[in-house]
């Protein structure tokens, strides 16, 4: 499918602190409107959903449509409830999933 996503989260934070999370994943995000050189339509292939969970609870979710650029980048925030593990999931058309985990400790 695609290369390993790049994720930037702090290693540690204070409880109650609002931290920024940045993710970037290499993906063509084919819209299904584009044509090859031979005139045939390139079939739609999007990462249609992104989910961010922390310690099992949903923090943020995105539905990505054809208007989202290739190699989708997302930056969002979380108010740190305590130590735990992030789980980031991208879901591609057809159901393939990419999941990444990151631990966060509390100062």
């Amino acid at each position, binding site marked *: 499918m695609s290369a390993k996503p790049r994720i930037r989260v702090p290693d540690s934070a204070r409880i109650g602190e*609002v*931290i920024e999370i940045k993710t970037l994943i290499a993906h063509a995000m084919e*819209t299904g*409107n*584009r044509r090859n050189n031979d005139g045939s339509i390139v079939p739609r292939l999007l990462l249609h959903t992104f989910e961010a969970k*922390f310690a099992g*609870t*949903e*923090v*943020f*979710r*995105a*539905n*990505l*449509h*054809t*208007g*989202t*650029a*290739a190699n*989708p*980048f*997302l*930056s*969002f*925030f*979380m*108010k740190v*409830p305590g130590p735990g593990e992030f789980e980031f999931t991208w879901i591609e058309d057809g159901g393939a999933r990419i999941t990444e985990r990151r631990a966060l400790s509390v100062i």
Partner: protein
Amino acid sequence: MTDRRTFIVGLSAICASMGCTSPIAAENGQGNIRAALKALIGEATPVEGMIILDLPEIAENGNTVPYTVSVESPMTNTQYAKAVHLLAPANPLPQISSFFFTPLSGKATVSSRMRLAQTQEVLVFAEMSNGTFYTAKRPVKVTVGGCGG
């Protein structure tokens, strides 16, 4: 009092005034945006305000236009911004993205990158936890359109 119909008529007027190059694409866009809006916010009447949409005034490359959306909200367990929807009415398919926040988000701010086929006004709709809707729009001039025509 603005109802949904006058709002849509307003949208058409905006699109027309922006000079949509392809009448067919524009017509499709209008049909699509009505359906897309209904699916996203139902029959709600959004009020202007509460949203800051940060977009470049001129996008040289429509394939990747960076943006940031912020909704003014205290983001507590009882009062928070629930969802944000972005639409580009003059794209072949108007939906850009939808974002869903939780009280754990801390801040209803998100940044990403969009595709824009041509110069147009980008629309944002925000849904709050109490069921109210807000809207904002920003014109963007696109030098080279995206969407791989």
